[in-house]
C-alpha cells in the first residue's frame, strides 16, 4: 500500500501544549526528601520542653553543659521526641502510601483507608487483641508483646480491605457509592463490636483500650515503634513494586492483562500492602484521617498520576504533613496537647469535600 507514505502533504496537527507537571517530576522527590528531613528536625526541637536541636548536638558532643541539663535534654530528645516524631513520619507515610495504593487498586481518587473503613477494620483487630487477646491466645499474647497490637490490626485491615474489594468492585469497576458506604458500614460494625467488647473488658483492659483509642502519637516508645515497623516496613517496601501494575490498571483490568500484568498477584499484593501499612499505623496512632487522600491528591496535581513517582512522593509528603501537624498539635495549646486527629480532620475534611465536588460527575452513578 502506498497510502502510508503519502503523508507528507498533510499538514501537522496543532502543536500540543506543554505540561508543567511532567517537567517538575524529577525535582519533586529530592525536594520532598529535603522537606521531610527539615520537618523531622524541626519537630524534634518543638514542644513543651525547650530542648533544642543544638542542645542535642551539644549533648552528643558532651560540650558546654552541666551534666544534669545534658541528661534531661538527652532523655527528652532521644527517649520522648525522636521516637514520637519518627513514628509520626512513618504513620503519615504509611497512610499516604496506603491511600495511593488503594486509589490505584480501586481506580478511584476517593479511596482512602480511613473513609473506606480499612482503618475501622484495623481498629477492630486492635480492640479485639486488647480485650480478648489473653482469652483467645492464652500465653501467646504476652509472648507477642508489642507485636500483638500491630499484628491484630494488620489482620483486621486485611479482612476489611478484602471485604471492601469483593463488595465494591465488579468486573474491574468500582462503585464509589458502595466504596464509601461500605466504609460507613464497617465503621458502624467496628463501633458496635467495640461497644460490646467494652462490656467484657476488665479494668486493666479498659485502661489499655482508652489509652490506645485516644489516637495520639504521645505514647510512643522505641519498643512499640520497633514492633510496628516489623509490620509496616514490609507493607511500604512492596509498594514500589506495585507501581507498574497500578499504572497499567488505570487503563482497566483488560488492558492491564494485555500488557502482561498478573492481575491476581497485583491485587493480593496491593491489599496486603495496604493492610500492613494501615494496620501498623492504626496500631500506633489509633487512626488518623485524611492523610491518605490529601497527600496523593496534592502529588497528582503537582506531577501527575504515574505511580512510580506518586507512591514515594506521597509517602514523603504524608510523613512530612503529619510531622508538622504533630508539631502544631504540641505547640498550639502548649503546655497542653491537641489531639492530632482534630488537626488532620479540620484540614482534611474540607479538602475531601473539594475533591468530591471536583469528581461530582463520576459520583452521579
Amino acid at each position: 500500500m502506498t497510502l502510508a507514505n503519502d503523508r507528507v502533504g498533510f499538514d501537522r496537527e496543532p502543536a500540543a501544549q506543554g505540561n508543567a507537571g511532567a517537567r517538575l517530576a524529577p525535582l519533586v522527590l529530592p525536594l520532598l526528601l529535603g522537606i521531610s528531613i527539615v520537618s523531622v528536625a524541626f519537630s524534634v526541637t518543638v514542644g513543651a520542653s525547650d530542648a533544642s536541636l543544638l542542645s542535642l548536638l551539644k549533648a552528643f558532643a558532651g560540650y558546654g553543659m552541666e551534666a544534669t541539663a545534658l541528661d534531661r535534654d538527652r532523655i527528652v530528645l532521644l527517649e520522648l521526641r525522636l521516637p514520637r516524631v519518627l513514628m509520626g513520619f512513618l504513620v503519615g507515610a504509611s497512610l499516604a502510601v496506603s491511600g495511593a495504593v488503594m486509589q490505584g487498586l480501586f481506580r478511584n481518587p476517593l479511596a482512602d483507608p480511613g473513609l473506606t473503613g480499612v482503618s475501622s477494620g484495623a481498629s477492630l483487630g486492635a480492640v479485639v487483641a486488647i480485650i480478648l487477646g489473653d482469652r483467645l491466645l492464652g500465653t501467646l499474647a504476652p509472648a507477642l508483646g508489642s507485636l500483638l497490637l500491630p499484628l491484630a490490626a494488620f489482620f483486621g485491615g486485611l479482612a476489611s480491605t478484602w471485604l471492601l474489594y469483593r463488595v465494591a468492585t465488579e468486573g474491574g469497576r468500582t462503585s464509589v457509592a458502595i466504596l464509601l458506604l461500605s466504609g460507613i458500614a464497617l465503621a458502624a460494625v467496628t463501633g458496635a463490636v467495640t461497644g460490646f467488647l467494652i462490656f467484657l473488658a476488665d479494668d486493666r483492659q479498659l485502661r489499655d483500650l482508652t489509652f490506645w483509642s485516644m489516637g495520639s502519637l504521645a505514647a510512643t516508645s522505641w519498643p512499640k515503634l520497633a514492633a510496628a515497623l516489623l509490620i509496616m516496613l514490609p507493607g511500604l517496601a512492596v509498594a514500589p513494586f506495585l507501581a507498574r501494575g497500578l499504572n497499567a490498571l488505570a487503563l482497566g483490568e483488560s488492558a492491564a492483562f494485555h500488557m502482561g500484568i498478573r492481575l491476581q498477584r497485583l491485587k493480593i499484593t496491593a491489599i496486603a500492602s495496604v493492610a500492613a501499612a494501615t494496620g501498623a499505623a492504626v496500631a500506633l496512632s489509633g487512626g488518623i484521617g485524611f492523610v491518605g487522600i490529601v497527600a496523593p491528591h496534592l502529588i497528582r496535581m503537582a506531577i501527575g498520576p504515574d505511580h512510580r513517582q506518586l507512591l514515594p512522593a506521597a509517602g514523603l509528603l504524608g510523613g512530612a504533613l503529619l510531622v508538622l501537624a504533630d508539631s502544631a498539635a504540641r505547640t498550639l495549646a502548649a503546655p497542653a496537647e491537641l489531639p492530632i486527629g482534630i488537626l488532620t480532620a479540620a484540614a482534611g475534611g474540607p479538602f475531601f469535600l473539594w475533591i468530591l465536588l471536583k469528581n461530582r460527575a463520576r459520583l452521579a452513578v
Partner: protein
Amino acid sequence: MIEAQGLTVSLAGRTVLQSIDLSISAGRLTAIAGPNGSGKSTLLKTLAGELRHTGRLDLMGEPLSRCQPETLAALRGVLPQSSEVAFPFTVADIVGLGLETGGAGYRSDAAARIGAALDRVGLSGFGPRNYLELSGGEQQRTQFARVLCQIPKAVAEDGTPRLLLLDEPVASLDIRHQLEIMSIARNFAEEGGAVVAVMHDLNLTALFADELLLMRDGRLVVSGPTAAVVTDAILEKVYGCRLRVNAVPPAGVPFVLAQCAG
C-alpha cells in the same frame, strides 16, 4: 499463528460464541465483521486470552490458556474497542505503558520510541497533553500508539511473527486517519505479522483485508479471502438487509452500496 476448533464461550450463562473454527495466519490482515452483538469483540477478547473458553484454541501451537500474561504480552498487542483511563495521565505516559510490557523494564530510549509511535499515528507533539482532554479519535490513536510500543516489530529477531488484535481500530476516526491506521496495520501484516481487526466499514475492509470472517449470532457464518466473501448473497444473509456489491474499475476492489429497504 492462531488455530481454533469448536471454540465456545459463555458469558453470564449465555453462549456468546458457538463452536467457531478458524485459522489466522501470519502475513495476513484478517478482518472480522458482522452485526452489532454478533460476538466480534468477544471473539477478539477470547483470542487475546482474556476469556474462559471450551474447545481448542492454540497460539503458535500452544494452548492459549496455558500462556502466562507476560508471555502473551510479548507476542501480541490488543487495542480494545473502548478504554477508560482512571487518572489524568499524559499521552506520553499512556503510550509509554506499552514499552514496559514483557519484562522490558526501563528503556533509555523511551522518549524517542514514544515520540516515534505518536508520529506514526499522527499525534506528533501530543506527548505532554492530558489524555482525558483529547477527542475520542485522538484517544483511540493514543491507544493504538501504545499497542505499537508494545509490539514494535511484526517479526521478532528469532523470526517468530507477532500479532495485533484490533477492535474497531478506526471506529471514531476521520477518513484520513482511518486510512493511516489501516495502512499501519496493513504494513504490519506485509512485514510478516498477523493482524486481526474488527471492522464495520466493509469498503475499508475490502480495501485493506486479505481475509474476512463474517459473524452472526455468535457463529462464524463464512470466512475466506475478502473478495470471495464480499458478495450480495452473503452480505444479505449476514446483515439481513439488501446490499449491492460492485467493483471499483481499475483494481477490481469490491465496494458495497446500501439499497433502499423498499
